């Protein structure tokens, strides 16, 4: 066990994370890591990131139709003709797909839309909050006394079966009502809540073009905080002029209550 007393250098930690050490040396580093949580955290981060980087590029390990031309020197000299040909192929395939009404769209689904929405979501949520939360008489279109109707109506516009209006009573926020509004160019829903002091917050729900989820993140602008995330087919944003802590609890509560 004397070996443990030897200093572990940063180079050792890299070598450990990259799997470049023989067993004996690994054991020595492991003993060190169990006593040095900061180093252990760094190594864990590097190891996880190695896997992420490999995953990022794994799909590129493939052959293409042009490979043989590449090694026999008979490829197109410039990229332009190739790209024109690709465009022509895309147009041709798209035409076929449109005819069959089937394959075209699935071939060209791209994740960009979803990222766009995620970038615009906090802004849209903040704007909606700014415009509507200050309204005294008309903050919403349908008030809380018609909650069932509100849910059915907005669910229909969003094409969501059983759209639930989150219940935030436990956190001290009562439903004011909701309205229809555009989110990223499509029908979206906004629910508004207020606490006993009249402090309001809004929950925005928009349709997500791509069925992939994100983690939870927040954006601040002045005193206004927004928590937002995408969960499957829907994007959500919770906005208010309340502490981040309170808003996070609200967001977590919404996350729990909205169907996945």
């Amino acid at each position, binding site marked *: 066990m004397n070996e443990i007393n030897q200093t572990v250098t940063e180079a050792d930690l*890299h070598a450990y994370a990259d799997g470049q050490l023989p067993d004996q040396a690994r054991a020595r580093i492991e003993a060190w890591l169990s006593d040095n949580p900061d180093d252990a955290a760094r190594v864990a981060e*590097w190891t996880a990131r190695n896997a*992420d980087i490999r995953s*990022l*590029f*794994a*799909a590129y390990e493939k052959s293409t139709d042009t490979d043989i031309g590449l090694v*026999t*020197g008979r490829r197109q000299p410039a990229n332009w003709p190739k790209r024109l040909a690709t465009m022509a192929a895309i147009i041709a395939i798209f035409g076929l797909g449109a005819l069959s009404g089937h394959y075209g769209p699935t071939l060209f689904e791209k994740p960009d839309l979803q990222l766009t929405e995620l970038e615009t979501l906090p802004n849209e949520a903040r704007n909606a909050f700014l415009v509507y939360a200050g309204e005294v008489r008309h903050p919403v279109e349908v008030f809380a006394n018609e909650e069932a109707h509100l849910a059915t109506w907005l669910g229909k516009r969003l094409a969501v079966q059983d759209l639930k209006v989150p219940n935030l009573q436990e956190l001290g926020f009562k439903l004011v009502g909701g309205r229809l509004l555009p989110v990223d160019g499509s029908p979206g829903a906004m629910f508004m809540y207020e606490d006993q002091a009249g402090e309001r917050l809004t929950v925005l729900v928009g349709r997500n073009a791509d069925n992939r989820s994100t*983690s939870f993140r927040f954006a601040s602008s002045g005193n206004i905080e927004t928590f937002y995330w995408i969960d499957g087919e829907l994007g959500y944003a919770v906005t208010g002029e309340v502490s981040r802590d309170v808003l996070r609890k609200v967001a977590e509560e919404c996350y729990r209550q909205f169907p996945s």
Partner: protein
Amino acid sequence: MKTPGQDTFEGQILALLPSLRRYSRSLTRSDADGEDLLQDCVEKVLARRGQWRGLNLRGWVLTIMTNLYRNGRRQTDRAPFVELNDAEDTVSVDPAPDPLERSRLEDALNSLSEENRSVLMLVVIEGYTYQEVATALDIPIGTVMSRLSRARQRIGERMKADNVITLRRPK
């Protein structure tokens, strides 16, 4: 077009192409840059075939590609925002659950210098030992370690997200 025989030089390069494509994309900022680097590399390899000593073809080609990349020939001004287009069309080995995290990782990699990025990718993507990297790039192993360290530190800083919380819905 006739497929080159497996024993021929061309045939061996052909067999290496998929993994070369992955490595070239890991160094570059877009699919188009990745393909360009791959094509330049193959051209150079074919032109210099007489210089190959008959051992470790893959290592020889990877060094040529890395040098092409480091010499900055491919660092033309292309759009900085790129997607992993081709990768999206194929069945992904591990569909990343969070597309934003993927794109943040790509941004972080794109912020690395060519020197640091090539060391990182030789280690992570190609599984090179540090000594192999030193030999391939003709630099001391201490330089390999400091570049690797800088690459990781930089990525760590770029990825440090103070606004991301991972939430899981309780079952």
